[in-house]
């Protein structure tokens, strides 16, 4: 048995294929690491050692019988927002503390069909509402680069677990930045695909016109390998994109000569943190040396992305979360006096403070007399934001900018101030409103904390984004740096 396993999916896949180690050995290696280290990090809500071992043995048998795809037998973790049949699925909420999903999300079904081995379910902000992982009912996840700092959210458990090498790869979801922000804060790579690319079936809904699942990994190539399995048309998702399957790794090594990168003046103005700005300048120079050219563009309406996003996402959340009524599943209060008392108390007890705030904002925005002023207004801004991007993509191939306005911040710093927390997503929410694909890759470090470079592409141009990220990672080593916690 090997003492050291490769870290990337590509390396693990090759090792398994050459029989250098088995899936059973690999899986027990990760399970041991989780058992030994995650007490400090709190990146997992549930770990399934027995189930993982069984799946690993099955993968080894399938490989021995000659039935093996590239990801067969490789361990991974699911954000606890994806339904896993027969396993607890909490969405990091007291509301679903004891909920055992009766079916698998399409993403989970696909990853298991490919032979991947689920280690467990990762921590997150409650119902994916948060930017720091601090709204979790199970306590915050810590950032492996500095345990006193947040990992970002909402897919913070997935990001921290990948960064800490407790899993080679994990799933995440991104409604307003929830894959990209924690990827940036934890120094890993993450992609939010085009809206409709990855099925939403069995992914617990937050804001259905914005939610999109995607992979989180150590590099762009691994994102491509995961996306190859996770994406695809699904008739069970009413907004699934009807596209033919595509190999997201096919273009990884394409030359960048002539690539036109747009730099939005709104992202690079005086409000940009100067140390993050310097990291981005270096990253863009690296792409220029490979033949890319940068030009200034303008996305004027994206200044209003945060308000439009908070109205649209809260409105959709208030509607989606009305299903948690204490009747069919989820938390139910003790001894309800009547039906109204059952609803009101079950929801008051089951939801945390941030989820309640969003439901209330959404309910208000959709209520009689306020609909046009808030919801309709936000939808109009949404069109202006989409138009800005479409105009930009007539001139450039991709758009580059920061993923986040700062590096990871200390635990507790923004918990009491929802507005400060919301502003963490200032560079990410516009992408969700427009439904575009975007990724974050590590591109620097400030005082020991990682900085993310965000690349935004036109609809269904994930392969191009991964190509650029891969070429960037060929010339840089930010993605290879190991946080102190994992060293």
């Amino acid at each position: 048995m090997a003492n050291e396993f490769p870290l990337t999916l590509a390396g693990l896949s090759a090792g398994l294929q050459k029989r250098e180690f088995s899936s059973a050995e690999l899986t027990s290696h990760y399970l041991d690491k989780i058992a030994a280290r995650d007490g400090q990090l709190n990146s997992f809500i549930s770990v399934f050692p027995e189930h993982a071992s069984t799946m690993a043995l099955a993968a080894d048998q399938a490989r021995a019988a000659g039935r093996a795809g590239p990801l067969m037998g490789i361990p991974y973790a699911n954000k606890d927002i994806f339904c896993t049949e027969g396993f607890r699925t909490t969405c990091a909420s007291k509301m679903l503390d004891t909920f055992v999903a009766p079916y698998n999300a399409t993403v989970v079904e696909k990853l298991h069909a490919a032979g991947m081995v689920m280690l467990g379910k990762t921590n997150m902000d409650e119902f994916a509402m948060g930017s720091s992982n601090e709204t979790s009912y199970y306590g915050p996840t810590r950032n492996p680069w500095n345990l006193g700092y947040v990992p970002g959210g909402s897919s913070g458990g997935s990001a921290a677990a990948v960064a800490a090498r407790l899993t080679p790869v994990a799933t995440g979801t991104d409604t307003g930045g929830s894959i990209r922000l924690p990827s940036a804060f934890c120094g890993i790579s993450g992609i939010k695909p085009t809206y409709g690319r990855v099925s939403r079936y069995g992914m617990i809904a937050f804001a259905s016109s914005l939610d999109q699942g995607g992979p989180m990994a150590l590099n762009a190539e691994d994102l491509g390998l995961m996306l190859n399995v996770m994406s695809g048309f699904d008739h069970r998702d009413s907004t699934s994109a009807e596209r033919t399957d595509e190999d997201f790794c096919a273009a990884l090594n394409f030359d960048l000569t002539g690539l036109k990168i747009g730099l939005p003046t709104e992202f690079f103005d005086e409000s940009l943190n100067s140390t993050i700005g310097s990291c981005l300048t270096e990253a863009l120079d690296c792409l220029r040396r490979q033949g890319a050219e940068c030009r200034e563009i303008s996305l004027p309406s994206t200044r209003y992305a945060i308000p439009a996003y908070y109205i649209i996402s809260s409105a959709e959340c208030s509607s989606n979360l009305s299903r948690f009524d204490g009747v069919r599943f989820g938390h139910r209060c003790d001894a309800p006096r009547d039906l109204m008392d059952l609803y009101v108390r079950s929801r008051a007890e089951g939801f945390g403070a941030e989820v309640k705030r969003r439901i209330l904002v959404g309910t208000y925005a959709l209520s009689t007399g306020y609909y046009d002023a808030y919801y309709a207004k936000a939808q109009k801004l949404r069109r202006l934001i989409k138009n800005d991007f479409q105009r930009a993509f007539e001139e450039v191939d991709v758009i580059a900018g920061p993923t986040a306005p700062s590096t990871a911040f200390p635990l507790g710093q923004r918990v009491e101030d929802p507005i400060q927390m919301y502003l963490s997503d200032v560079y990410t929410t516009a992408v969700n409103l427009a439904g575009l694909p975007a990724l974050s890759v590590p591109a620097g470090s400030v005082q020991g904390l990682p900085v993310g470079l965000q690349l935004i592409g036109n609809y269904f141009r994930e392969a191009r984004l991964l190509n650029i990220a891969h070429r960037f990672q060929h010339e840089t080593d930010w993605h290879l740096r190991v946080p102190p916690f994992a060293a």
Partner: protein
Amino acid sequence: MLDEAEVQVIARLARIGINDDESPTLTLQLSRILALVAEMNKVDTERVEPLAHPLELVARRRPDVVTETDQRATMQQTAPATHDGYYLVPRVIE
């Protein structure tokens, strides 16, 4: 600015109980969120059509065949209270 009475009305619509302790802070927080959101009014959207869905998809048609099987027993395994296949709630009619 919202006042506490308005927040109680919204909470009632949302079927979320708010106790007296949390009401002042919540009212302040919601007011601040609405102030942030009011930024939207700086933009003239007079002739802009609302966008509900990023890719503006239309609902797909599918063949009229049965795709759902009876899964009542499975689905009710996660329910807080059931009886003979029904969900139990407190008495509704006095």
